[in-house]
């Protein structure tokens, strides 16, 4: 048997076991997985995540097997462990997020020297594809959820439609072209610390504004994108923002700090009650769930969709070749946490 045939047979074996996300995986062998385990001081049997309702744990060993299958290099493994911890810091991810009819995806953000060391893309095409670390670290998380937690589509995973790129959104922050402090620094870590942050997304939507140099017009364009009624299910509709460097630099040049951008958006992202009424969402239950039945009549009243800048992640990523940014729709609450790669802050 020639080697390609052996590889093909091994790949098909993984499909037969229902271990893949639809794409071919790298069959994990003991020697390969041991190379992953050698990248961390953590014991293979250490439990690094538990989904209470399905009673399943993920160990360092299982994370290593799934990271190997995802196509990671062994040296990516500390980033996978940090990404997994960051994802599990999201309350929804620990709860029923993976089973949700919303079908959310994790947004994974990498900061610090590890970006250059491992070749993470932070510039053009930041949302992918095309770069092995970005693609495989995100995929590793997806395979862990599928295999270690056993949450598979059409069974315990009940996404109504899901999200393009559900297990593929890992971007590195373009710290070099950002006018502001990196996300990890905002989360309390040092400037030279490699770290990973994450939150669950409903989707992301572009803002293409190459039309004005007025910062408030650009922010108004972003706010309008954040404020569409389809995204408003509860009292609040949290969003985040991945600014292209051109937008970020233009805002900074006009005197906006990152905190100023957040404050402006918190103030302006919302809709008039009449807009919500037309969408059948002007009523609110005691639990903060929107519905159609609203006894209040003031259609001009403006409802803000975000109450706190603390829940609005702002990241700079992408190329400085057009004024484009991405609104990201946060599924639950952004944890505001950055996890150091290798566990050392």
């Amino acid at each position: 048997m020639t080697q390609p045939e052996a590889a093909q047979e091994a790949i098909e074996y993984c499909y037969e076991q229902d271990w893949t996300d639809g794409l071919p995986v790298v069959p994990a062998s003991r020697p390969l997985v041991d190379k992953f385990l050698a990248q961390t001081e953590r014991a293979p049997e250490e439990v690094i995540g538990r989904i209470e309702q399905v009673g399943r744990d993920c160990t360092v060993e299982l994370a290593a097997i799934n990271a190997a299958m995802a196509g990671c290099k062994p040296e990516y493994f500390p980033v996978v462990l940090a990404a997994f911890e960051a994802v599990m810091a999201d309350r929804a991810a620990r709860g029923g997020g993976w089973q949700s009819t919303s079908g959310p995806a994790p947004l994974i953000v990498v900061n610090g020297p590890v970006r250059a060391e491992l070749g993470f893309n932070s510039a053009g095409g930041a949302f992918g594809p095309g770069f092995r670390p970005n693609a495989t670290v995100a995929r590793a998380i997806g395979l862990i959820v599928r295999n270690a937690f056993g949450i598979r589509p059409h069974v315990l995973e009940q996404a109504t439609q899901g999200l393009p790129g559900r297990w593929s959104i890992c971007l590195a922050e373009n710290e070099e072209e950002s006018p502001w402090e990196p996300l990890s620094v905002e989360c309390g870590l040092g400037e030279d610390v490699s770290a990973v942050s994450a939150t669950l997304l409903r989707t992301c939507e572009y803002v293409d504004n190459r039309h004005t140099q007025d910062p408030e017009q650009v922010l108004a364009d972003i706010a309008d994108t954040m404020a569409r009624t389809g995204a408003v299910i509860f009292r609040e509709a949290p969003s985040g923002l991945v600014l292209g460097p051109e937008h970020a630099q233009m805002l900074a040049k006009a005197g906006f700090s990152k905190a100023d951008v957040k404050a402006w958006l918190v103030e302006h992202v919302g809709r008039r009650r009449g807009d919500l009424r037309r969408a059948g969402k002007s009523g609110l239950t005691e639990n903060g769930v929107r519905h159609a039945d609203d006894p209040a009549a003031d259609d001009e009243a403006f409802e803000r969709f975000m109450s706190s800048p603390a829940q609005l992640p702002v990241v700079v990523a992408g190329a400085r070749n057009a004024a484009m940014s991405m609104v990201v729709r946060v599924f639950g609450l952004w944890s505001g946490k950055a996890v150091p790669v290798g566990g050392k802050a």
Partner: protein
Amino acid sequence: MPEAILDPTGGLRAVSEGAAVLTPNRLRLAGATIGLLSNTKQNAALFLDELGKLLVERHGVAAVTPTVKTVFALPVPEDQLAQLKETCDAVITGVGDCGSCSASAVADGVAFERHGVPAAVICSDAFVVTADAMAELRDAKGYHYATTAHPVAVLNPDEVRKRAEEVLPEVVSILTTAS
């Protein structure tokens, strides 16, 4: 060669076929107190309230105890389970009308039964696969729950009453019939 490929799942769990789940002490509805454990999903509390009214009117149930499980995606907290066990003769829980809440409603039903409390779970029929999968995870393959047509969240109050009426016989059967 396949023997050399490592398993990324941590191994398949053995699932016992039809493990004894139901408490053998099924209920006499007359004079009973029934806990109504709603899960904050839209219309769930109303649905259970309507069921409660019907049980009082038609089956001699003495009292109902509405309770809310605040985190719909997770199993009922231990203290809430203990409290319902202490104060109620049986529990009706739901409505499982989403991926995570239907699964956790079934997990709760199994937990109540294993604590000796007859329980009727209501899920919408879009989620039978996930509900059945959760029953298997709890070693309760084939666990019987009541279904109502999906969706529940968008129904108006009259439609919810109709649904409660429709599912009532199934709920009564689950609570009172020994397996």
